[in-house]
């Protein structure tokens, strides 16, 4: 636990009756763009809310940017911006009024808060519409206001809870680009939760994966995705000896019939599959990386 760490948690546990939303989570995260993945209900939101002091942990400790979450909650909240997953905007005020009010709530003097609000709304692409009532905004625009209010006081750490939720593919893309830009170019550390691995892969450097409140993985994002990648190999005809030969060459092979699933160790795996196919003169129809859903990743690891 060093003062330079972004987030440091030790045995962090939260129980709701019999449900273990967090179960002895321990991690020490360095500043940067961090992804926090887990299936819905895995405890991601609970973790963020505990860091902000919006929830009390059942046991364990944590600190954010060196501030203890229990004894220095106000200090934590000064340097953190939070974008919740759920709706959190009043509908009968304008975006500019609301965002600058939130800036003032974080201690910015009136004029500075107005200026920052205008800048942030431009940053998220709402400059033209900033005087309209929030109630008249689309889901995508509301997500942008949520991001703007989290940024208005220039936090050192941004906690984004499923920022792409409810957006169409185009909106998702734009939001991720915005998040990426904020994290990469402006030196603000980010903790981004998502149940979609693709989003985390795209934006983050480090990933924390949890399932049922337990830490499953913590480290570089490429190592995380590589070790769980699977190559799908389709052949036109059923070739039982194909799978057998691949296994003989040391590969982990699943499935039977025309579709085999081969665990991808490194790039050499492709060569092995090619060589075996050539050897058997197998009619290869398709060979591609399988897109994983998170649930499968966890099953693969524990099984």
């Amino acid at each position, binding site marked *: 636990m060093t003062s330079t760490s972004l987030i440091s948690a030790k045995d962090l546990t939260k129980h709701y009756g019999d449900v273990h939303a967090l179960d002895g989570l321990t991690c020490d995260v360095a500043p940067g763009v961090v992804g926090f993945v887990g299936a819905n209900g895995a405890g991601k939101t609970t973790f963020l809310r505990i860091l*902000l*002091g*919006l*929830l*009390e942990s059942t046991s364990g400790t944590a600190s954010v940017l060196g501030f203890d979450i229990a004894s220095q*909650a*106000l*200090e934590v*909240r*000064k340097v*953190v911006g*939070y974008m*919740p997953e*759920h*709706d*959190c*905007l*009043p*509908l*009968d*005020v*304008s975006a500019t*009024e609301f965002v600058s*009010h*939130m800036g*003032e*709530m*974080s*201690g*910015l*003097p009136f004029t*500075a808060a107005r200026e*920052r609000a205008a*800048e*942030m709304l*431009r*940053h*998220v*692409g709402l*400059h033209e519409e900033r005087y309209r*009532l929030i109630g008249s905004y689309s889901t995508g625009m509301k997500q942008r206001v949520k991001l703007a*209010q989290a*940024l208005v*006081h*220039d936090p050192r750490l941004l906690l984004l809870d499923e920022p792409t939720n409810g957006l169409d593919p185009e909106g998702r893309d*734009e939001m991720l*680009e*915005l998040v990426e*830009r*904020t994290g990469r*170019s*402006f030196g603000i550390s980010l903790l981004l939760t998502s149940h979609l691995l693709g989003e985390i892969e795209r934006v983050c450097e480090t990933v924390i994966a949890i399932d049922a409140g337990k830490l499953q993985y913590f480290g570089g994002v490429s190592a995380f995705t590589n070790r769980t990648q699977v190559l799908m190999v389709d052949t036109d005809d059923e070739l039982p000896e194909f799978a057998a030969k691949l296994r003989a060459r040391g590969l982990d092979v699943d499935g039977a019939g025309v579709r085999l699933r081969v665990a991808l160790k490194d790039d050499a795996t492709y060569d092995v599959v090619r060589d075996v196919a050539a050897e058997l003169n197998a009619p290869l129809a398709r060979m591609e990386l399988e897109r994983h859903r998170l649930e499968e990743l966890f099953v693969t690891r524990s099984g």
Partner: protein
Amino acid sequence: MASTIYDLGYQRYDGARLGRGYSFRTLWWYSVKAAFGSGRGEQARRVPILVAAITFLPALVQVGVASASGMINFISYGNYLEFASYAIALFVAAQAAELLVNDKQNGTLALYLSRPIGATDYALAKLAALTTATVVIVMGPQLLLFLGRVFLPDKPWTAFKEEWMKLLPIVGGSLLVSFFFAAIALALSSFAMRRAFASASVIAFFLLTPALYAVADTITTGALRRWVVMINPVLVVSGYSKWLFELEASRRSVVGRADLPGQAYFWVVLGASLVASGVLLSRYRKNET
């Protein structure tokens, strides 16, 4: 390209960052403005305008009549708070929901509580804001009456010297009565998840307590019967304002018949306000949404 616009946008901020007291004042003032529908749609201003009309109109009429007829004594403060009670109840019923339940219903409470203020600060700022807004509604008309009594006579200075002592009960009474109504309305609203339920519970409280009083009045006797007026918030406010302005309650009125020491009303108003504030704060004891 949209992206070129974004590039201009983000700049670091290294200016002043003010403390917790500033955040508290920010929330207080923002909520006072919200209570009068400032910066919001026309709908948000309906109740404040209606209530202001109800409370200011009699003051305007009194001053107008006194001015036309020259009968300065036509103007009196003593019954003002009692008269305004139901209008004040309507105001706090609507605006407690606006200030407190809106944030819960919209989810905005989570944003407030992730800012550098505590949940207790939040609740206190809302209580201070609704009290302030109610003071405007309650004290405004009385100040108007005061100005009428000072400036309508031929010698305003002499009138002022006779009248200025009345400022004390006007200000003190308005503050405490506003606190009383605001605290009760917020305490009740803190249990509601939706605005309509909050308003309904506050209105029900101010309608049902007089009904409860009426029942209690018929089934009790003697000394106990005198004290049951304390169940009825409107009578409590009435007794309190009579004591403040040193008026003799009419023998035929309920408060007159009860013949309780005037101070008792003061203690009941203060006690009820503090209990209600305690309930409100206990609802926001934890920083959890």
